[in-house]
């Protein structure tokens, strides 16, 4: 097992997953959001537990019985069970309960679980990859929040303000992450 490779691949290169699956809404939201730590912590827990559940189901049920076509169904099933358990554990307080429908409908988790869960046949490697992915995601949120905050004080041309500027910013961040992925893997993805 090469954990250094796994962490760097997940933290840097595979983090592009979030740009594809998570959608831009999260990145383009208010950078000063106060629930950032809780959101990242929740994402970590959900992704790690869901990925492990998916990996176990895939490894011990679907593959032995040649039912690989049901992988997407398994992801939804695992996510539903995990989020339901999480809601029961966290109690009735609405502010501490995760936005269940948001998480279920968020393709981030579906894509993340599918990608990370199927990336290795080793349970420990899958957990390391899941944690690294969410750490990378948290880092991206922090970085983009601060960058957008700085850009709000610059003299940006009027026609570029708003969405075009945010997309260009994301494009540059993507360029850096893509390049780092290439520097570690030696090939473009």
């Amino acid at each position, binding site marked *: 097992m090469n954990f250094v490779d796994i962490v760097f691949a997940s933290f840097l290169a595979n983090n592009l997953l979030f740009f594809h699956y998570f959608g831009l809404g999260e990145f383009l939201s208010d950078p000063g959001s106060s629930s950032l730590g809780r959101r990242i912590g929740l994402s970590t827990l959900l992704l790690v537990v869901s990925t492990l559940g998916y990996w176990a189901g895939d490894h011990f049920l679907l593959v032995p019985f040649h039912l690989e076509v049901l992988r997407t169904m398994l992801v939804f099933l695992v996510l539903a069970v995990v989020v339901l358990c999480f809601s029961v554990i966290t109690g009735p307080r609405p502010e501490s309960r995760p936005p269940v429908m948001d998480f279920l409908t968020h393709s981030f988790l579906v894509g993340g679980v599918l990608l990370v869960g199927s990336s290795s046949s080793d349970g420990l490697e899958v957990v390391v990859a899941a944690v690294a992915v969410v750490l990378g995601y948290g880092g991206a949120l922090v*970085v983009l929040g*601060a960058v957008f905050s700085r850009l709000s004080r*610059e003299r940006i*041309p009027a026609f570029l303000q708003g969405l075009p500027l945010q997309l*260009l910013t994301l494009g540059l961040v993507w*360029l850096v992450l893509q390049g780092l992925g*290439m520097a570690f893997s030696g090939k473009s993805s």
Partner: protein
Amino acid sequence: MLVVSALDHGWSVFVVAGLSVSSAWVCDELLRRWRRSSEPQDWGAPLWGLLLALMLPAQAPFYLPLLGSAFAILIVKGVFGGEGTPWINPVLGGWAFLQAGWPSAFPTMAVLTGDHRTTFDLQATDWLNTNVFSWASVQLPGGYLDLFVGLGHPATALIVESGPLWLLAATVYLLAKGYFPWEVPAFFFLAFCLPLVLTGGNVLYQIFSGALLLSLFFLASDPSSRPLGRAGLIVFASGAGLFSFLIRTWGVGSDGVGYAVLLMNLFVPWIDRRFRRKSLNDFRLA
């Protein structure tokens, strides 16, 4: 540095540098006219063009310097407000753009061998070993003086690899004049060399090969994309040095040290927010 590189690789070096500088200058002039800027044009854009040229292969195709400089000036600088506002280094932005688009144009890190030593390296190493290093009972292996002076590189080498000696000379002058803060090169160097020594890496080779010295002294110290306060500078430079070590140790392919600086550029707004010194207004508002 360009002259030394031209001695090794021919006049194409000047063509690459000329195209890069002129492309940067033209794009900057276009940008100024479009923005109807009344400020006189400074030497910032041509200097960025020159720095980008140094990070290109000596025999790069003509469109690489043209496109790289255009991307650096029009996209990285122009879109985000112009002079002094880019939040990532425009030179490295243009370089990353070229790396992503034409990765095969960039050479892999050269391996230090004694096979292609120049006469200078043969004679000077022999003289140093006989007259200087023999006193300390150590021997300088062959090839290091070529690396230091910038001779004997393959045709695909980066232009900057032809001049560590001249780059250091320029750096001493600029540091003495106070053009950039000492914290950036000092902590970058420390964070790069310390883990390298601990893991038994070849420190001399790692320092004098690739674009490390250029990144360390010039690109990481760019005023618009570095943090403001001293604590921020230390965090920024240490992070860049550490990531450079990781990329050089675990990375493959071409020299990716520029990505270490770019990655820390992404964190600069956060570092400024986290480590900046509070002004009087902050206390008043509090």
